[in-house]
């Protein structure tokens, strides 16, 4: 047994109401007066009522097919036997809906509730109103009738049928169809019209709802629920969908339809957005190509008697690089080559690379030789944070005497192939552009023999990895030499990539080849500029020594350079290596150092000498 029928009917008046229209109810007021009630804890529940007063105006109610709901549990009572002296009532199926409180199992004092105003008048009792609750002492008895038609089942007037129950409503509708069973305080006094019924009510065959077999009335109940209580139905009735579907499915269909429409709109918007982004990407790539072309421009294959081949290969991604190069003609008879590498990657490196390239180009275009251009650019682009700097090689080729003058700033020297002697001089090098250190100190001038190949490159080539090893200058020189008489820069990068396992930095290469076949006088001049501090260190003697200058000449040159540097700040030591032995010339640096305007020029309107143009 799944419930404890603690709903003591002690002293209760039971009023039966139904949800049916009032005129269909034959028994409107029923007052069941129970004086006392004992509820055994075991099943079946026996209700011993010493005195049950039923006020029935001559009508008994037989309620077939009812269920009992107790505290949310629905039970069906197969048979209720009311032992009445003189009258025995058997209801085939009585449903008693009792919602009990936990303490309802205890006996309840008989008189606690106000008297039910159940009179003999056939007027609807208060219990007939829907959703009235039965308030018993510690429990409430809800009696409802499931079938309105059954409520009007005729019964013999002589046989009083104290309908203890109406229908056991479905849980969802129980509160709506509830009747009150209120114990009257008093008996008699007009409230009990019929003979006093005293007897015992025995409820048997109690089942829990979970094991209740689906009776023939349950589909009806569901249908009723759909008909009356389903909000989907209520909504669906107002949806004019021209579909042969039930009402309850219309809101669902409508919701799914709206969902599909919204998803479709979203998909369309996404498609449009993707198209727009694709267009923007094309534009950006074009702009990026323009930016990249500003750094690594297309160069004519033949310029000023030189065959030029350039190539660039980014390390990773389209805008990774900081490499740049430029080949141009600053003035007739000269070809300038600029190749550099900005530290770092990304857009900042691009901006710095462009700045460095055009600054250098402007100074070379203005006629400065490579060393002076580097020195001036290093002063102009000095970055105190030392975060932005560039290593650059600048070269100017003189077509007249076929000499190449180049200077580097923190950059590897170009690879020279086809020269009679190949000596690498990196003793006195210049720091990169951007450090707050004077740069542009060294410069080399060499004549190009027929078949000479000069390869400027960025350090991405030498720093290409080959199984954790760097490729190195020697291996790169071998690769350049193996390219043949007409090396192509693109092929060089391809060979380097093939020789390496990883190229973590971007690579740029610029290869110059001499078109001419005839030989010219060999020229090899090394220049270094040094101030007093630099002259006090070992590097200048080392430089002269590596150039092959005899020791006595070194000592003489150092003392002479010290004198000049003491007077004019710096001295330039020019070593002519093409002669034997090498000759050293010490010069004042004013000739190569450009004049910088310390004072801004006077504006018009101010007093001062005014330049006059005469035609």
């Amino acid at each position, binding site marked *: 047994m799944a419930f404890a029928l603690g709903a003591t009917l002690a002293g209760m008046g039971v009023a039966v109401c139904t949800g049916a229209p009032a005129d269909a109810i034959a028994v409107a007021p029923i007052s069941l007066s129970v004086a006392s009630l004992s509820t055994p804890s075991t099943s079946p529940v026996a209700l011993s009522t010493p005195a049950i007063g039923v006020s029935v105006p001559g009508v008994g109610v037989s309620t077939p097919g009812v269920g009992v709901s107790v505290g949310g549990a629905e039970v069906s009572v197969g048979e209720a036997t009311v032992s009445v002296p003189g009258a025995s009532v058997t209801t085939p199926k009585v449903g008693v809906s009792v919602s009990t409180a936990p303490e309802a199992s205890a006996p309840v004092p008989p008189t606690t509730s106000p008297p039910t105003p159940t009179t003999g008048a056939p007027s609807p009792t208060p219990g007939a109103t829907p959703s009235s609750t039965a308030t018993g002492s510690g429990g409430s008895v809800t009696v409802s009738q499931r079938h309105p038609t059954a409520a009007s089942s005729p019964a013999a007037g002589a046989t009083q049928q104290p309908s203890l129950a109406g229908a056991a409503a479905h849980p969802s509708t129980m509160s709506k169809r509830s009747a009150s069973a209120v114990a009257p305080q008093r008996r008699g006094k007009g409230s009990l019209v019929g003979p006093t019924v005293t007897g015992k009510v025995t409820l048997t065959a109690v089942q829990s709802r979970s094991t209740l077999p689906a009776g023939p009335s349950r589909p009806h109940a569901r249908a009723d629920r759909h008909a009356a209580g389903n909000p989907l139905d209520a909504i669906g009735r107002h949806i004019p969908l021209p579909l042969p579907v039930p009402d309850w499915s219309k809101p669902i269909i409508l919701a799914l339809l709206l969902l599909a429409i919204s998803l479709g709109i979203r998909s369309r918007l996404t498609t449009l957005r993707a198209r727009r982004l694709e267009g923007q990407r094309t534009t950006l790539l074009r702009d990026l190509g323009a930016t990249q072309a500003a750094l690594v421009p297309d160069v004519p294959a033949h310029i000023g008697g030189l065959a030029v081949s350039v190539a660039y290969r980014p390390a990773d991604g389209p805008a990774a690089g900081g490499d740049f190069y430029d080949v141009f003609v600053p003035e007739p008879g000269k070809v300038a080559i600029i190749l550099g590498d900005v*530290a770092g990657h990304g857009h900042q490196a691009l901006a710095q690379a462009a700045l460095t390239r055009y600054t250098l180009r402007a100074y070379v275009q203005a006629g400065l030789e490579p060393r002076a251009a580097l020195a001036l650019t290093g002063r102009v682009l000095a970055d105190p944070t030392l975060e932005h700097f560039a290593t650059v090689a600048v070269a100017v080729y003189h077509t007249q005497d076929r000499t190449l003058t180049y200077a580097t700033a923190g950059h590897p020297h170009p690879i020279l192939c086809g020269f009679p002697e190949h000596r690498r001089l990196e003793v006195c090098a*210049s720091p990169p552009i951007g450090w*707050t*250190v004077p740069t542009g*100190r060294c410069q080399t001038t060499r004549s190009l023999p027929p078949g000479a190949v000069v390869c400027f490159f960025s350090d991405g080539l030498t720093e290409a990895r080959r199984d954790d090893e760097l490729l*190195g200058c020697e291996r790169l020189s071998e690769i350049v030499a193996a390219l043949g008489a007409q090396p192509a820069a693109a092929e060089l990068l391809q060979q380097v990539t093939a020789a390496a396992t990883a190229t973590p930095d971007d690579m740029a290469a610029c290869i110059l080849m001499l078109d001419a076949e005839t030989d010219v006088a060999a020229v090899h001049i090394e220049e270094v500029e040094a101030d007093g501090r630099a002259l006090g260190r070992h590097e200048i003697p080392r430089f002269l020594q590596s150039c092959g200058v005899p020791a006595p000449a070194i000592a003489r040159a150092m003392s002479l350079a010290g004198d000049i540097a003491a007077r004019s700040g710096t001295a330039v030591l020019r070593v002519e290596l093409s002669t034997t032995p090498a000759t050293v010339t010490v010069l004042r640096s004013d000739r190569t150092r450009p004049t910088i305007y310390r004072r801004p020029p006077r504006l018009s309107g101010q007093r001062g000498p005014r330049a006059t143009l005469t035609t």
Partner: protein
Amino acid sequence: MSVFHISEESTSTDARGRAGALVLVASGEMDYSASPQLRERMLGHIATGWRHLVLDLSAVTFIDSTAIGALVGAVARLQEVGGGSVRVVCNNHNERVLRIFDMAGVASLIALHRSRAEAFSALAAAPTVDVRVRAWAEQATARGARAQIKVSRRCRTAAL
């Protein structure tokens, strides 16, 4: 993946005056990805009071211009705070590093020594060096520049 390793060694126990030179021993590849940490370490030591830094690059397999830029940054900071020196130790076997230093052209800023003892003796012989530092450098030269590793940290950065 570039792996490098910097550890600080110091024989000076005078933490207040920082009398002496802080020796940093680097190994691995000091490239673009390692240089920010090298710069940070050196500037941090300068901020804590060290004025003479000796960077031992004998075990470095590769160094690029950004790492030398970090050294130049340390020199610039030392000049801001009133003087000091950055000395690099690299033995003759490490030609690759020596060549990079030659190419960088920073000999006027950063003295390059072949051994630590040479660096310490150069520090002791430097004209503008604090008396205590000079005394320490002389002692260190006499000891043969054996130093005890105090701090050792391993840094591992992804190649950019």
